[in-house]
C-alpha cells in the first residue's frame, strides 16, 4: 500500500475517480447547485489524504498532471467571451456597468471587512479574488501574493453562498427579472452561480455565463495593478 501511495499516477487516478463520483452525486440529486462536483471531489480526496497520512506535496506530484490543464482552460475562455460580445451588443453599456460596479462593490466590501476584522495581509490579498471563477482566481492570486489553496476555497464558498442567497434576495426585493438574476449570479457567484442560473431558465443562464466571463476578465486585468 505504501508503495502505491507514493506513485503520482495513483493520486491522479484517485482525483479523476473522486470527480466522477462527485458528478454522479450531482446528477442523482437532480443537478443541485449546492453540491457541485468539485466540492464532493475535494472532500473525497482530502478524506483519502487524511486517512492515508500522505502529504499534500506527495499528492500534488500526481495532482499536477491535472493542474497543468488550467492554463489552456483559461485561454479557452476567449471562445465564450467572443460569442457574448456578438450576442449582447445592444445592452453592452449597462452590462459592463453592472459587471464593473457590482463586482467592485462585493470585492471592496469583502476586502474592507477582512482588513479591519482579521487584519492578516495574506488573507486580505487572497480575498480580492473571491468573485472570480477559480482558474482565473488562482492565476491572479499567485500574481498578487495571495494563498492559492485559500483562494480556491473562498471562490467555492462564495459560489455556494451566492447561489443560495441571490435568487431569494432579489425575489424578496422584487428585483428578480431574469436578466438581473442571471447577471447578478454570474458576477457574484461565478461558475456555481451559473449552474444555479441554468436551473432557473435559459435567459438567466446566458446572462450568468456572460457576467462570469466578463467579471473574470475585468478582475484579471485590474487586480494585479491595484493589489
Amino acid at each position, binding site marked *: 500500500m505504501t508503495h502505491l501511495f507514493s506513485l503520482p499516477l495513483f493520486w491522479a487516478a484517485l482525483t479523476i475517480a473522486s*470527480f466522477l463520483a462527485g458528478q454522479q452525486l450531482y446528477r442523482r440529486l437532480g443537478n443541485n447547485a449546492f453540491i457541485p462536483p468539485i466540492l464532493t471531489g475535494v472532500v473525497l480526496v482530502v478524506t483519502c489524504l487524511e486517512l492515508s497520512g500522505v502529504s499534500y506535496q506527495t499528492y500534488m506530484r500526481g495532482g499536477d498532471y491535472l493542474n497543468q490543464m488550467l492554463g489552456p482552460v483559461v485561454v479557452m475562455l476567449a471562445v*465564450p467571451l467572443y460569442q457574448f460580445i456578438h450576442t449582447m451588443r445592444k445592452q453592452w453599456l449597462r*452590462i459592463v456597468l453592472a459587471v464593473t460596479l457590482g463586482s467592485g462593490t462585493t470585492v471592496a466590501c469583502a476586502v474592507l*471587512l477582512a482588513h479591519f476584522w482579521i487584519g492578516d495581509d495574506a488573507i486580505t490579498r487572497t480575498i480580492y479574488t473571491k468573485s472570480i471563477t477559480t482558474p482565473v482566481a488562482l492565476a491572479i492570486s499567485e500574481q498578487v501574493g495571495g494563498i*492559492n*489553496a485559500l483562494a480556491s*476555497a473562498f471562490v467555492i464558498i462564495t459560489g455556494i453562498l451566492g447561489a443560495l442567497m441571490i435568487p431569494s434576495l432579489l425575489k424578496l426585493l422584487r428585483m428578480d427579472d431574469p436578466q438581473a438574476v442571471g447577471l447578478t449570479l454570474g458576477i457574484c457567484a461565478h461558475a456555481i452561480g451559473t449552474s444555479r442560473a441554468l436551473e432557473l431558465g435559459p435567459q438567466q443562464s446566458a446572462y450568468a455565463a456572460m457576467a462570469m466571463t466578463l467579471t473574470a476578465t475585468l478582475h484579471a486585468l485590474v487586480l494585479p495593478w491595484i493589489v
Partner: protein
Amino acid sequence: MSGLLTLLIFLLLGSLLQTLLHLPVPASIVGMLLLLLALILRGKTPDNLQRITQTLSPLLPLFLIPVSVGIITQKQLLAEHGPALLVILALSLIPGALVSALIMRKGGKSGS
C-alpha cells in the same frame, strides 16, 4: 487535437509577451486576450476551437480539484479565522448583488 494545440500556442504567446513586457497580468490571461483578438479579427470561431471548448468545459472542475485540496495545508488558519471568513464572504455578497441588479433594472427592459 488541433484546437488544444491552438490553446497551447496562445498560452505560450501570452507567456512570452508577459515576460517581454513585464506585465503584472497572468500569462494565461494575456493568452486569452490574444485569442479573443484573433477571433474578433477572424470574425468567427473555428470548428476545432469550438470542439475543444465543448470537450474541456465539462472537465473544468476536475482540473481545479488538486489546488483546492491544498486547503488541508491551511488548517491552522481556518481554525483561527474560519467563522469570520464565512461571515465576510456571505455579507459582502449582499451590496454587490443589489448594485448589479439595480443597474440591470434601471433603464427599462429594452433588451427583453
